[in-house]
């Protein structure tokens, strides 16, 4: 038992998890109809990439990867603020958040 927990999680598991999360994000982005869900799918993809960054940084003992994650999180935060503002504006203008119905490329 002890040895099971003491064992390190293999690199491939992290990468696999990252790939699964990213794919879920892509699928969610493509099939979900609600703009907020689509937005969340983007966050999911970003974090999947973050996970693989951290994994590789640990593997290669390179701190650059971890620093890059901070940058990604910072940009994601800014993007969330802007994105949510856009969503509110869209909702006010169109009274809907279904992406199929806001395909006019103008308000």
């Amino acid at each position, binding site marked *: 038992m002890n040895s099971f927990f003491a064992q390190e999680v293999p690199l491939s598991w992290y990468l696999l998890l990252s790939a699964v999360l990213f794919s879920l994000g892509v699928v969610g982005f*493509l099939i979900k109809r609600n703009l907020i869900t689509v937005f969340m799918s983007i966050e999911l993809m970003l974090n999947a990439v973050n996970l693989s960054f951290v994994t590789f940084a640990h593997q290669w003992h390179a701190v650059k990867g971890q620093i890059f994650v901070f940058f990604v999180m910072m940009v994601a935060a800014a993007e969330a603020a802007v994105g949510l503002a856009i969503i509110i504006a869209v909702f006010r203008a169109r009274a809907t958040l279904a992406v199929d119905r806001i395909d006019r490329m103008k308000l």
Partner: protein
Amino acid sequence: MNADLHLWLIPLLPFVGFLLNGILGRGLPKWFITTIALVAPLASFCVVLNASLGIFGFLPASNSLPYTETCPLPWINIPALQIDFSFVLDQLSIVMLLVITGVGFLIHVYSVGYMADDEGYARYFSYLNLFLFFMTVLVLAGNALVMFVGWEGVGLASYLLIGFWFQKKSAADAGKKAFIVNRIGDFGFLIGMFLLIANFGTLTFSELGARLNAHSEWQGGVLTIIALCLMLGAAGKSAQLPLYIWLPDAMEGPTPVSALIHAATMVTAGVYMVARTHVLFDHSPVALSVVATVGAATAIFAATIALVQNDIKRVLAYSTISQLGYMFLGCGVAAYSAAIFHLMTHAFFKALLFLAAGAVIHSLGGEQDLRKMGGLRKKLPITFAVTTVGVLAIAGIPPFAGFFSKDAILYAAFLQGTNGKILYSVGLLTAFLTAFYMFRLWYLTFMGESRSENVHPHESPWSMRGTLLILAVLSVCGGWIGMEHFGNFLAPSVGTMPTEAGNWRLEFILSIVAVAVALEGWMIADKFYRRKLTKPAQYAAALPGTYNLLANKYFVDEFYGAVVVKPLLGVSKFALEWVVDIGILGGAAWLLGGIASFTGAILQRWQSGNLRSYAAWLAAGAAAVLLFLLVPWATVLANLPAIHLGMAGH
């Protein structure tokens, strides 16, 4: 030592007038336009007068003719051919220039009254000045190419002025007709020039004359061809058979234009050209007889048409064609000075007749139909008087100008052997017809009862009446100089007249015959048109075929329309419009446009605005890049044949 005559000023002054009125005319006040328009030809006339007074001996100048002015820079300078921009003044060009600038100035004055209310006042005078510029270049030209510049230029001015009221379709069409028919003649002129360059290496008239005079054994052959080509050009410009058809239509222009361009000056350019190149014609009896035959045929042909025309200007137009035929008849019997003499007197009395007709039309508010005139003798006394002078002059009644010149031509024709007798008879018959149709016009316009709806015809303004009076004086006195003096004066330019020395008795008898024939024409017109107008209708009904033929001008326009215009239009329609324009050019445009819009139609699907389709394309793209990077393509491709072969092996 020749004094400087400044010949270049003669064309340049009207050209300056053209530029001023043509460019600035719209913004200038009317009196200013008038001043420019009148001063330019008047100044030009004064330069001509100054030059000619010296020659006539009135001024103490000692110029010997021909006097040449050449631009110091050569125009065309290639091996074996040099063409200068040169002007030559000799006896022939003096006569022409005096007529052109003198009569031209008078007609400018007349136009001031005639065109006073026209919107295109400045445009009209700029065209008129442009015409004088080109006409004087034509006459002064020292070689055929400079003459050709003037030749084309007067054609342009004529086109612009015929179509002056271009809002009227008939006027615009008449302008085009004149231009296109003249192109055929110009083609002949050009070929003639090319043949001159090829055979003589020069276009300078004096050089050409010297070369030909030195070799009297050169006869016919290529000289005939050159002379006939030039004659084709002359026939186009001077409205001879078979290219005369444009002149009657040219009457669509304002009446002073008909007087200046289509009666007095431009249409005589062909006669002038034949006289100027007479050395060529003298070396080719065939060409000379062609000229004489064309002239005589045109004279009688046009005179017969004029018998039954009802438009006053058209009668005069056909009479002009007929009189031009006389001039060519004169040229054709080598009586060039008689032809030029008739050209001069014709310029006086035909300008007078046209301007008087213009005054009549003006007073009746635009009415040109002879059937709706009549009885104007008392209402327009001055116009009546001057028209009478003009009619007597053209009919050849002594002592009016036309008698002397027409008589000289007929006499010269009579002396030309058997052919000459035929030409003489045709000329005499034409003289009879001329007297008849001119008196017909005279009776229908001025005599009898008024048939006009316009009850208050009024005499024209002084600028018009004054011009008419001056021209009337010229039409009376223009011939008094006498053929002998005139011929002697012109002899250095165009050679002497063929005469039988001392045979004044023959000349006298011929004059009596000509006058008798003219009076006979008058008598018959008197019987037909003096009182009741039933007789002409009776004759027309008795000879319906002949009348129809004449009234429809021998159907020549219809014939040309069917033989030349229709096939040409058909070919243009099929080959040029359908095949080239719609097929090739239009097809290419449609093909290019089609490719662009087809590609656009496909590409626009990508720009759907649908977020998820963008995302799907993005994901697909990313997947494609990954696939491209991950798959070792080199290995796969290298093994591809092997896989294929392996499968085939199984």
